[in-house]
């Protein structure tokens, strides 16, 4: 492990054979890996950001409608109950999932030192995924929602998505299976587990809810088993896998502790899958199910704490890097949000707290805490790190990256800072039967207005990101002849990796 250079890391400025110091890895093989990843992953990122923009417009509309209910009510497809699932699916399956898939494929092939197998297959998979997204979104706006949260796309869409996932997975399979080095990196544990868990999760939920639906209240248990595990066993491990690669990589340090990494991963694998039933607290299901999920939430704090301490200790002494390293800012923000969202999730599961917070806007705040403040911020940082290697172009403007970061950070802090207390106030009022229900509704309106304001700040940050990515792509198209890895570009003065 060479000591980190004191120079700032200009990875966002120029792509280069950064891993020259990695064992068993020549710049040429890295170039071959990046070349194989180029089309499918740029497609996943590009389409993902387009879905992010679509999801943002839908989110602003839905948020505005909550305090201005008379807005755009003449058409069924514009009603709140259709805009909302279109928003969640655009950001969850359109943006977050595609970003996750792109980052996973890139990391898996890089860490496995194996190019993607027939990248055309993965490109096809990505195209079909987007086809499924378009059909599904049109169906939602047309009123064909299944009525099952997190799985609203009608059942003719899920086989398309499942097949697309399989196509993308096939391309990454050789990289999953091979690793010349003896040991797997921490990132690989998380990513391998995630790509293995997701298809099981998705197919089980689709079969038991849409194709051969189980009867009655048991549907709700399958529904929340899926909703919770999609976060805990797909998005969380992908986000942690990216953090365990990029944080050590960008500061040129090894991961702080192998033992903590093992504890963090093991406890997520053990307890991560047992959450979800707390979403049904007080509902018509056996109470033991809820108790199991609450207990699992408490046990899961082992994983949150181990990972938070491990990542923090890896960063310790290197926080000054955040001044120059813009991608790292997103990573560190995401890592801190992971710890906080984990803690909030555990607290919200406790019966004494969920008695108040269940059924309130706090649920929405928490979804954004986990999926946006943690996961999406890590994905932004990852895309800032990966895209220059795939396009062969530096990001045109570091200032735009900084602007994206600050608008996203301010927007998120406002969003959570408004909606968390707003949800608690709503819950307390709702549990006081002396307050008429319409008074409770009236009390939420100031918070909902401020939430829309936060939404506009976040929309600005997404626009900056979208424009920047388009600008980078355009400059690459203008400059086609440049080799993917420009030997004259700066050699990046970092070495080492996420090897324990």
């Amino acid at each position: 492990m060479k000591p980190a250079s004191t120079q700032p890391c200009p990875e966002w400025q120029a792509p280069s054979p950064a891993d020259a110091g990695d064992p068993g890895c020549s710049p040429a093989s890295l170039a071959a890996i990046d070349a194989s990843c180029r089309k499918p992953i740029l497609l996943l990122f590009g389409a993902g950001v387009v879905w992010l923009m679509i999801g943002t417009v839908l989110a602003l509309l839905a948020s505005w409608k909550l305090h201005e209910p008379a807005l755009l009510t003449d058409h069924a497809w514009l009603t709140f109950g259709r805009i909302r699932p279109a928003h969640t699916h655009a950001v969850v399956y359109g943006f977050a999932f595609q970003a996750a898939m792109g980052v996973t494929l890139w990391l898996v092939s890089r860490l496995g030192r194996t190019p993607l197998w027939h990248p055309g297959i993965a490109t096809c998979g990505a195209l079909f995924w987007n086809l499924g997204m378009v059909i599904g979104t049109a169906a939602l706006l047309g009123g064909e929602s299944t009525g099952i949260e997190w799985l609203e796309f009608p059942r003719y869409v899920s086989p398309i998505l499942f097949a697309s996932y399989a196509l993308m997975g096939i391309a990454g399979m050789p990289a999953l299976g091979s690793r010349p080095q003896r040991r797997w990196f921490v990132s690989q544990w998380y990513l391998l587990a995630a790509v293995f868990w997701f298809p099981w999760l998705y197919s089980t939920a689709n079969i038991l809810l849409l194709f051969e639906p189980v009867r009655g209240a048991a549907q709700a248990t399958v529904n929340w088993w899926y909703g919770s595990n999609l976060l805990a066993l797909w998005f969380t491990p992908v986000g942690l896998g990216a953090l365990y690669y990029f944080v050590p990589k960008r500061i040129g340090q090894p991961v702080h502790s192998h033992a903590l990494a093992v504890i963090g991963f093991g406890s997520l694998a053990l307890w991560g899958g047992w959450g979800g039933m707390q979403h049904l607290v007080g509902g018509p299901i056996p109470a033991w199910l809820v108790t199991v999920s609450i207990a699992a939430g408490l046990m899961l704090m082992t994983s949150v704490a181990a990972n938070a301490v491990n990542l923090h200790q890896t960063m310790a002494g290197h926080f000054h890097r955040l001044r120059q390293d813009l991608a790292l800012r997103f990573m560190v923000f995401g890592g801190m949000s992971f710890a906080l969202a984990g803690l909030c999730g555990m607290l919200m599961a406790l019966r004494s707290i969920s008695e108040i917070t269940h059924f309130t806007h706090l649920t929405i705040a928490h979804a954004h805490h986990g999926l946006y403040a943690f996961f999406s911020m890590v994905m932004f940082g990852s895309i800032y790190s990966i895209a220059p290697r795939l396009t062969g172009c530096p990001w045109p403007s570091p200032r735009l990256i900084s602007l994206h970061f600050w608008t996203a950070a301010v927007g998120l802090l406002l969003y959570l800072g408004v909606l968390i207390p707003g949800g608690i106030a709503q819950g307390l009022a709702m549990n006081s039967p002396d307050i008429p229900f319409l008074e409770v509704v009236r009390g939420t309106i100031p918070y909902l207005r401020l939430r829309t304001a936060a939404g506009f700040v976040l929309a600005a940050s997404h626009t900056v990101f979208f424009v920047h990515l388009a600008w980078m792509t355009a400059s690459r198209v203008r400059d086609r002849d440049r080799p993917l890895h420009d030997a004259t570009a700066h050699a990046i003065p970092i070495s080492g990796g996420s090897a324990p």
Partner: protein
Amino acid sequence: MKGRRLFFAGILIAFAGSWFGLVYAPQIQLGRLEAVEIAETGEFHPPALPGSARRGREVYRAHGCFYCHSQQVRPPGFGADSARNWGPRRTVARDYLRDQPVLLGTMRTGPDLANAGLRQTNAAWHLLHLYSPALASPGSIMPPFRFLFETRKAGAGRSAGALDLPAELAPPAGCEVIPKPAARDLVDYLLNLKAAAPLPEAR
């Protein structure tokens, strides 16, 4: 290689545990529930919905009503559901046997509807509320569902079912506002939302 096998065995077993615990075990416990005959009334609970209410449930689902309205009553001592008159008892698994899909909901931006058909039995009120929530329920932030209604030329005399609207919402002279079939079905569904039959497990 041995480490890898152990790794895959580990993540497989971990996931299988969650699958058996939270997906399969609830099926064992809830899968064999059947409708029961209520001794007091001689009726079965949950009752089969009439066709119009079943179509209404599709309207409810298609327009995402469940994003703002839950359909579950929490037990006494946990929240203020019964004090808010949302139901005479908690809801239990048997109440949902005939629901496809089960629309429990996770938000109460609007009130719970598990017993909407007990609280408000007036179909005309429901229709007016769908057309203009702010009129029927001042302060409501529910969106109006005017696309479920049509404004058409009135014949001689008022048609049955035309909405009785105040001046500021009234259609142009000679016209009337009539609910489309979807609006009538939806109201039939709401009127059929009742989870009050005295079940032994809900006591």
